[in-house]
């Protein structure tokens, strides 16, 4: 199983890296948003927040690649004609889909690298991390938790015929309610409980605290806990999808 997960992850990572669309949303779009945030912070005299903006824009890129990649994962398999093959394979459908959704979050790492590099070179953003080792831990844990959230998205969005439109809708709201660039304290009070069940909130907290100072472990712990919940939920939903598709003979129908 580990071999399946590892090879699957690498295969999808290479595949997604060759997609111009994913280059756009995981590299160019985060750099554009980071630049907008840098200029906004500069114009508003919030110059101390440049590293904050670079990290936030990077995490926004991870969310975008997870949302668009995982949200349409099953639909893409359908369009490519590979869905029947992966469902019929001896390996459980869950273990085939999991590396795909984790890889969509993983290419979001390009976002972090791109926004930090961009910020350093063009805006002189200091890359002095308070806890570099914890940063190196928080980042992959965040990516993994988002990949597991992607599993839930993949198994849910497949029920919606135009998943891409739904993905478009969810990009900005999640950026907002998980506090990736805008502190949650500025948003209405009812938003905060929503943010608690979303891994990007805790991932952002862990990554930001590792870089700027603060408690890292609570964020990492919540990512692990939510990741486990997403995995269980995703497994259940995928099983349900597979069962319904087999019973109704609708696996290849869009």
């Amino acid at each position, binding site marked *: 199983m580990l071999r399946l997960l590892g090879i699957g992850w690498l295969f999808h990572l290479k595949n997604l890296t060759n997609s111009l669309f994913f280059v756009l949303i995981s590299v160019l*779009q985060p750099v*554009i948003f980071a630049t907008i945030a840098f200029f906004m912070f500069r*114009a508003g005299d919030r110059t101390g927040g440049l590293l904050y903006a670079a990290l936030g824009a990077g995490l926004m890129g991870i969310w975008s690649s997870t949302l668009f990649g995982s949200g349409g994962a099953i639909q893409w398999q359908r369009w490519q004609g590979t869905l029947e093959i992966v469902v019929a394979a001896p390996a459980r459908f869950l273990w085939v889909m999991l590396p795909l959704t984790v890889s969509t979050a993983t290419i979001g790492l390009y976002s972090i690298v791109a926004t930090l590099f961009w910020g350093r070179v063009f805006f002189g953003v200091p890359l002095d991390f308070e806890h570099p080792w914890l940063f190196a831990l928080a980042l992959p844990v965040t990516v993994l938790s988002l990949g597991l959230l992607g599993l839930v998205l993949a198994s849910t969005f497949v029920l919606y015929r*135009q998943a891409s439109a739904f993905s478009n809708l969810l990009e900005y709201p999640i950026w907002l309610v998980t506090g990736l660039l*805008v502190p949650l304290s500025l948003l209405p009070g009812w938003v905060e409980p929503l943010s608690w069940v979303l891994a990007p909130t805790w991932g952002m907290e862990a990554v930001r605290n590792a870089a700027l100072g603060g408690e890292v472990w609570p964020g990492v712990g919540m990512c692990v806990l939510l990741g486990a919940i997403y995995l269980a939920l995703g497994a259940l939903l995928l099983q349900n999808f597979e069962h319904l598709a087999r019973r109704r003979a609708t696996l290849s129908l869009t």
Partner: protein
Amino acid sequence: MTPALRVFFVGGRISYRALFNWISPGIYVTTMLGSPLFQILFFTYLGRYAGGRNDDFFIVGNAVQVSAMAGIYGMVMGIANERQYGTLSPLLATPANRLAVFAGRGLPFIVNGLAVSAFGFAASWALLDFSPDPEVLPALALVVTITVVSCTALGALIGSIGLRARDVFFAANLVYFLMLLFCGVNVDVSDLPGWMEAVGTAIPLTHGIQAARQIVDGASLGDVAELVATEAAIGAAYGVAAYGLFRLFEAEGRRRASLETY
């Protein structure tokens, strides 16, 4: 109705309806209303955090910019999809007036862009306490209309390039996001480096947003006449360039028998 006018109105309407993704109510609401609404909310809250500008600056900038979504993506799909779906050759085999074919496609997206922008302003009034003087609304509507036409001309230019380029949707996405940066949507163009300001002043949207902001602040249409005229002139220049490229690629495609090859 003359044949050219019929092609303009009926052809444009059919082309718009053919983009079934856009007229399915669920898809329309999520893509054309939901996404712009959250864009306005996101940047307004980010603006509050960054400081330096009031809410109106971000609301007007984004509510005008979201109208470009219909103009750019719609026109790109309206023109470039003909090639992708294999209907370009039959279309160009007809004796229909090319200007009517081309311009007719833009009209529904102009109306669509206006609707999106109006929704953005209305949602901002409901959710963000955006309350311009009602007297400025006609002038604001005129400025937004000219800006939407201008953005649709830019979309037509990208769509025309799609008659030749392999992946024009990448360019459409990139241009849409770059407009957020270069056109003074969230950062005044005077706060951008000189070269970015120069780029911003040469593309649609920038002058329209500046005019819209001044009108919301109480300026009259006469006060922003120069900005509005510049926006209209830029839109006209892009429109002419788009039509020129459309005809050029049509002629080239016929000569090389490459209309639908990639």
